[in-house]
């Protein structure tokens, strides 16, 4: 007999089957996920989700007898009162008395099928075929980047990493422990011996002979016991730590002036959340910066960003200036992928539009991986293009990569989001928008 402990075997043996199943049920699952995201508030998104799938494609058919025709016998256990020849009323809606619950359960299980998607899978399907522009390139670059990090000491290493302090500390303690004579002691002996060179008295002679022996001993010891022994040597040790260059920072810019209604903010919030979820799927490390603005802009925390209202005019360029300040201070461009998403109702001081255009073109767009603008409207929407829209529009027409959309209803968020980040966007298409 042989006992094998398999508990530590690699887990998830059936994962590849699960993956195949999900691929098979892709269409149905995507439908179900879409439905789930549409019905619920976005903050709900991302928990473990159970979805019902019903699909012929997931049926495993076998030829089997039908319960509806023919003559058959059922032998059943547990007779209580029946006598031979008794008639029993045919049970309704059952394929046959004998098959009972088994048949019914099977039938149902075959048709509709409940499936629990993990958070990962749910979002994977949600983000299916979405890609951000320039993303792959950045990711390729970012993979396998290592930074050396100090990690204690080692007894071997290259000379340049020699830790002198440690080495000398070891050397001193070893020399003390082994009682290595210090050079000063030897010198003192030598001096005393020199002084006694001409000595005549028997004490002096005895002392001189004693000194000679001692000096000899000291010299021998100091030669035997090296000043620095290989066992003393210590080097600084470094470990190569993979560095999360796959970091992204996401700037949420929003107009919080009085003209923004709760409804508009709600739309904006959903948009940011979706973008955040998407980025957190793609990057190990995602930071979010919230910048709100009226006629002045300020970096705030999320709570304040969405809840507090401010009064004042609307000067969009201040938000860009604030963003530029934050990037310069904290997010060097070679270490961060920068994404910006702006939500606004389209109002801006008309004198500011020129500045916005210049800032965007010269500073913001070049440093961003991606810049998205959604213009939120109250339900019903507006027919006319706003100043801001026209400003951005002219930028897009001249070839700047801005993705822009108008959104006025909750249900438009998801399709907008898909379009914004649709895979294989060409620069020209990316700039396209609907009116």
């Amino acid at each position, binding site marked *: *007999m*042989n*006992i*094998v*402990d*398999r508990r530590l*075997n690699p*887990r998830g*043996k*059936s994962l*590849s*089957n*699960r993956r*195949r*199943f*999900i691929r*098979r049920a892709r269409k149905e699952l995507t439908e179900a996920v879409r439905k789930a995201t549409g019905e619920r508030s976005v903050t709900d998104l991302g928990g473990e989700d*159970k979805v019902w799938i019903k699909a*012929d494609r997931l*049926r*495993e*058919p*076998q*030829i*089997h*007898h*039908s*319960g*509806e*025709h*023919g*003559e*058959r*016998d*059922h*032998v*059943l*256990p*547990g*007779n*209580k009162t*029946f*006598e*031979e*020849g*008794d*008639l*029993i009323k*045919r049970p309704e809606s059952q394929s*046959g*008395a*004998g*098959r*009972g*619950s*088994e048949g019914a359960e099977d039938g149902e299980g075959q048709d509709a*099928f*409940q*499936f*629990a998607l993990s958070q990962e899978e749910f979002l994977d399907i949600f983000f299916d075929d979405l890609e951000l522009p320039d993303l792959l390139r950045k990711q390729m670059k970012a993979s396998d980047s290592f930074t050396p990090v100090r990690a204690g000491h080692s007894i071997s290493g290259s000379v340049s990493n020699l830790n002198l302090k440690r080495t000398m500390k070891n050397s001193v303690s070893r020399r003390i422990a082994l009682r290595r004579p210090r050079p000063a002691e030897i010198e003192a002996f030598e001096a005393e011996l020199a002084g006694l060179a001409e000595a005549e008295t028997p004490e002096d002679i005895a002392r001189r002979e004693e000194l000679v022996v001692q000096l000899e001993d000291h010299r021998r010891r100091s030669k035997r016991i090296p000043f620095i022994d290989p066992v003393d040597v210590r080097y600084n040790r470094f470990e190569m730590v993979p560095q999360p260059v796959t970091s992204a920072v996401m700037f949420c810019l929003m107009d919080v002036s009085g003209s923004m209604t709760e409804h508009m903010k709600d739309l904006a919030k959903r948009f940011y959340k979706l973008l955040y979820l998407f980025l957190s799927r793609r990057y190990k490390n995602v930071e979010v910066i919230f910048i709100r603005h009226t006629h002045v802009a300020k970096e705030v925390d999320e709570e304040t960003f969405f809840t507090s209202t401010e009064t004042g005019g609307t000067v969009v360029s201040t938000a860009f200036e604030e963003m530029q300040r934050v990037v310069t201070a904290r997010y060097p461009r070679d270490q961060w992928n920068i994404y910006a998403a702006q939500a606004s109702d389209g109002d801006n001081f008309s004198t500011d539009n020129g500045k916005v255009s210049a800032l965007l073109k010269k500073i913001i767009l070049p440093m961003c991986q991606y810049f998205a603008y959604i213009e939120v409207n109250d339900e019903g929407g507006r027919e006319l293009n706003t100043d801001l829209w026209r400003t951005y529009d002219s930028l897009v027409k001249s070839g700047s990569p801005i993705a822009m959309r108008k959104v006025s209803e909750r249900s438009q968020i998801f399709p907008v989001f898909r379009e914004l980040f649709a895979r294989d966007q060409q620069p020209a298409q990316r700039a396209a928008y609907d009116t």
Partner: protein
Amino acid sequence: MTPSSLVTPASPKTIQPDWDFDGLRRAYDAISDIALGELKLDVYPSQIEVITFEQMLDAYSSIGMPLMYKHWSFGKHFARDELMYRHGLRNLAYEIVINSNPCIAYLMEENSMMMQTLVTAHAAFGHNHFFKNNNLFKQWTDANGILDYLEFAKTYIARCEDRYGEDAVERVLDAAHALMAQGVNRYPRRKTHSLRDEEQRARVRRDEQERSYNELWRSIPASARSHRSTTESERRQLLGLPEENVLYFLEKKAPLLKTWQREILRIVRHVAQYFYPQKQTKMMNEGCATFVHYHVMNRLHDTGFLDDGAMMEFLQSHTGAVFQPDFDHRGYGGINPYAMGFGMMQDIKRVCESPTDEDRAWLPEIAGSGDWVNVLKEGWANHRDESFIRQFLSPELMRKMKFFDLADDSKSDLVVKAIHNERGYQTIRTKLANQFDVVQNEPEIEVVDVDLDGDRKLILHHRVYSGILTEEKDTRMVLQHLADLWGYEVVLAEVAAQSDTVLKQHNAAPKRGVLVA
């Protein structure tokens, strides 16, 4: 001696509540003394594997095999089982045992030491003995080769996925799985090859085809060959018809399949054949294992290896397993094979040891023989569920289980045709045996003809007994798969067995580009 056994203070005579490896070993040895010494079981060497519940679910979903090729349906079963398990709707089986040499038995880590002892007796001795000695298993399965063969199947299919794409392979597997029930030989025809040879044979077959391939044959004008017409009997002989194993027929004769597609059909066919005996002997197999564990556990209690507490725990678990709900009970899901099997084995032991006059009349060969060990072993070796019931079901047990027989003509009220009394015993025994007969419960389907000169239509017959037809929707789906594999039209005629009249006909035409060009 291992270090752990040095520090474990456990006395070798009793078991601890929690299991450890040393305890497993001692339990195995104690069981072995009884199972081999008293019951004279003949088993493959055992390999006991301790696994987590997740791994148990894994094993569940891949039809209990430790390795299996990849397919979405296994993922589906896993998801379903996992959900049910997590919601507490279903308990996992305490064990899974694999008909292989060495015989692999899985123990779950959550089990108590008593459960591990029970499961070891049940699986590593009971099922193990049955696998090694039952004739069906001996004839149709190859315990030595199965793991190697599955390894081959797994890598072969993985290689096909690499070469032809997951989709292409999936389509073949879907179709093959749909025909799995029609992929077994019910009656032996010739000696099957050891599964271990299969990989070798697959390679030789492929090499030979490559070697003998000649471009010239493709250039022969079609007209030169098309005028040949064959008589029906010639044609049927040529194609080896009628053929009950549809997968076999397709593998050998389907005109458009590629070599790798044929090989996949072959793999699925072998897996189906490997499991066919288990289907036919479910009740006996469980009965044998349950009987063995019941005997062993009681004897272990006698010797003091199991204390009273462990024995109580055992009895609770045991009675749960052999509980048979009545037909009108909410939990009724058919006849519980554990209950039925265990009941029959215990009953046979009783008849051997202390028969009544009734037993002497009904079971004259074994009544009072006293030698129940050998009677049972004979029975386990030479029967399947259906014949075992026909041979050994006693009136005593029928009364105990309160069997009754209902006649159902799918139209009018149900009629109680027999109950557990003198007039009914014979009927119940026969009907119950039929109920356990896999052959009677699955549609009998054969490939009967191919229109070779015409449109190559494949003709199958379902022999209909007592007017029981096949279920329409599933049949249509399976036929579609069949047509896709065959590459031409397929017709399934449901023919009444008595009168040879066609009751119903299903047609399917292949979807081009699904499986074959």
